[in-house]
C-alpha cells in the first residue's frame, strides 16, 4: 500500500480518501483526549463530510465530528 511521503493534517485530506494516523501535534491534554477517543497512531480514518467548521470522521465503525483545529492536529498519511 502506497502512502504520501510527508504526513499532512487530516484537515486537508479529500473526502472519501483513506488515511493512516501518524502523529498528533497538540498540547498534551488534547493529544491525550484524542487518544482516548481512539485516535491512536496507526489507525485508519476517512473524512465523510465537511460542515464548514468541522469534519465528520470515520474511525472504524465510529463516526465523530471534529472541529477544524483538532483536525489540524492530526497528522496523517493518505493511503491509496
Amino acid at each position, binding site marked *: 500500500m502506497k502512502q504520501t511521503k510527508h504526513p499532512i493534517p487530516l484537515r486537508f485530506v479529500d473526502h472519501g480518501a483513506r488515511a493512516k494516523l501518524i502523529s498528533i501535534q497538540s498540547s498534551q491534554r488534547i493529544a*491525550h483526549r484524542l*487518544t*482516548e*477517543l*481512539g485516535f*491512536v497512531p496507526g489507525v485508519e480514518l476517512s473524512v465523510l463530510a465537511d460542515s464548514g467548521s468541522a469534519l465528520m470522521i470515520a*474511525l*472504524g*465503525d*465510529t463516526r465523530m465530528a471534529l472541529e477544524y483545529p483538532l483536525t489540524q492536529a492530526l497528522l496523517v498519511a493518505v493511503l491509496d
Partner: protein
Amino acid sequence: MSEIVVALAGNPNVGKSTIFNALTGLHQHVGNWPGKTVERKEGRLLLNGKTVTVVDLPGAYSLAARSLEEQIARDFIARGRPDLVVNVVDAANLERNLYLTAQLLETGVPLLLALNMTDIAASRGIVINPAALSAGLGVPVTLLAASRGEGISALKATMAEMLARLKSSKQMREVAA
C-alpha cells in the same frame, strides 16, 4: 442484608442497553442521575434466587471524566461500589474498547468482560480467542450477540458464578477479621 449491584459499563453504542434490557426485561426503573439530565436506568434480575440490581451506565471512552456521561460512569464505579462491573466491549472494534477496560482493571473493581457484536466481528472474519483474552486480562470473558439474544444465558451464568465467589471471599475476609 445489603443488595447486590451490578453495573454495565462500556464505550458508547456497544450494546449496553440491549444487554440491560435482555437481563432485566420489564423490571426496569428509568429516572435521572441526581442533579443531571442524563437518563439513569436501573433494573432487577433474579440470579440463583437472589435479586440483583443492574445499573446501565452512560457510555464512556475513559474514566478521566471529560464528559458528563463519563463523570457519571466514573463516580458510580468509584463511589457507588458495585459488586461487579460488566464491561461491554465491541468485538468488531476491540482494540479501542480495551482502553476503558484497562482503566476499569486499574480501579480494582471485580470485572467481567462481555464481548458483544460477535456477529459483526464474525462477518468480517475477526476471530477472537476468549480464553487467551481472559488469561491476558485476568478476568472472565463471555461472548454475545445481544441484539439476537445470543450469549445472554451464558452471561447470566458467569455473573452468578462471580457473585457467588465474591460473596464467599467477602465472608471469609469478615470471618478472618
